[in-house]
């Protein structure tokens, strides 16, 4: 029963929190640029407007792909809130990511094609990091389930600080922030127009936006697991991490995919492996 309530909280609360966070993000970004910025509710206005637009698709595949992406993102958040298995969560999430790419690949637009390939490279960059972080959880708790983490007495951050830093890379990629925002950026008039999202429009773009909110909450949820013992510290950790993300987004230019692979694999995976060896030895 308790699990069911948690799942419902996750399914309803995650997109609301994700949308508010997106609005807040734009506000803070505007503040960095000494502008006023849009209202906090802006993300909800955007999506509501998208749902009111004409349904235009290039082919039927896109409709399926947008829905699968949304359902997979929602399902992974539901599993996360149900205290399920972390590996299952990440596999369900990966299905969504793959369908997003497939939707883009099903069209002929060169922008969408290039965007899809870049998105695949991004998935290739962050998935191993996530798996290594889960391996870290396993080494500390002896299980892949989230329940086992809650049973821990001390915050995990003390035991896996380097893995947390590596997770920061995954978060930057997942939030589509500079310098890793090369498959689809917030400013779609540059370079690739909008990458994977080029051929999506109207309500289907709205679905993808909601799925993106779910994913944001999922990755932030993973970050939250690092300080599960105290809610105040957990909130502080999340706030600090997200602020840092926005700061990085505003101070960095977009880089190439080669640069990203090098950084994320060498530095991110390097840090993870060092942390894992430390856990193993300690």
């Amino acid at each position, binding site marked *: 029963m308790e699990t069911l309530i948690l799942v419902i909280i996750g399914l309803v609360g995650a997109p609301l929190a994700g949308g508010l966070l997106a609005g807040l993000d734009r506000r803070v970004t*505007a503040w960095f640029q000494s502008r006023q910025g*849009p*209202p906090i509710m*802006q993300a909800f206005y955007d999506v509501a407007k998208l749902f*009111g*637009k004409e349904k235009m698709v290039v082919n039927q595949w896109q409709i399926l792909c947008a829905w699968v992406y949304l359902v997979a993102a929602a399902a992974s958040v539901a599993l996360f809130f149900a205290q399920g298995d972390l590996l299952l969560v990440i596999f369900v999430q990966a299905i969504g990511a793959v369908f997003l790419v497939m939707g883009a690949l099903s069209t002929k637009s060169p922008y969408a094609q290039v965007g899809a390939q870049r998105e695949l490279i991004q998935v290739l960059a962050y998935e191993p990091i996530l798996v290594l972080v889960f391996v870290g959880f396993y080494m500390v708790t002896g299980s892949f389930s989230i329940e086992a983490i809650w049973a821990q007495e001390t915050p995990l951050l003390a035991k896996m600080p380097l893995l947390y830093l590596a997770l920061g890379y995954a978060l930057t990629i997942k939030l589509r922030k500079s310098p890793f925002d090369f498959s689809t950026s917030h400013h779609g008039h540059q370079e690739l127009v909008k990458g994977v999202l080029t*051929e999506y*429009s109207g309500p289907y773009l709205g679905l993808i936006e909601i799925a993106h909110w779910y994913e944001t909450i999922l990755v932030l949820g993973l970050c939250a697991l690092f300080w599960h013992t105290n809610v105040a510290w957990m909130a502080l950790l999340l706030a600090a991490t997200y602020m840092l993300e926005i700061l990085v987004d505003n101070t960095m230019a977009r880089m190439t995919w080669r640069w990203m692979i090098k950084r994320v694999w060498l530095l991110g995976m390097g840090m993870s492996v060092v942390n894992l060896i430390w856990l193993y030895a300690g």
Partner: protein
Amino acid sequence: MFGSFIKKSRAKSPWIMHFDCGSCNGCDIEVLACLTPLYDVERFGVVNVGNPKHADVLLVTGTVNHRNKKVLKNIYDQMPEPKAVIAIGACGNTGGVFREAYNVVGGVDKVIPVDVYVPGCPAKPEAIIDGVVAGLAKFAQKVEEAK
């Protein structure tokens, strides 16, 4: 309830797309000036998108000529309804000083329907913002009538 929220949201989230039909660049930099911290149109939810499929409002600057009229029409057709078109500057409205050139078709309204005309050479950022707001009111009305 959701329907009225959608209706309200339309005016609160205009994503603009800017197409330059061979302007002298005067009007273009004024359009982009609207996005700078001084005018900060993002306050009103305006996002400058580069993709007609995501856009609600099309801002057209410069004179339409025989070569780019097909491109203009194509971009217009790719935008999902409801949409609004705003012609900016003397060139966009009528062809401006170039209207008698042999390759010039004239104003934007010779090719696609225009909702709002923003005068000026170049049009002032304030006038452009005004134009976008007037355009939104127009397309809200259009949606109302279509129902």
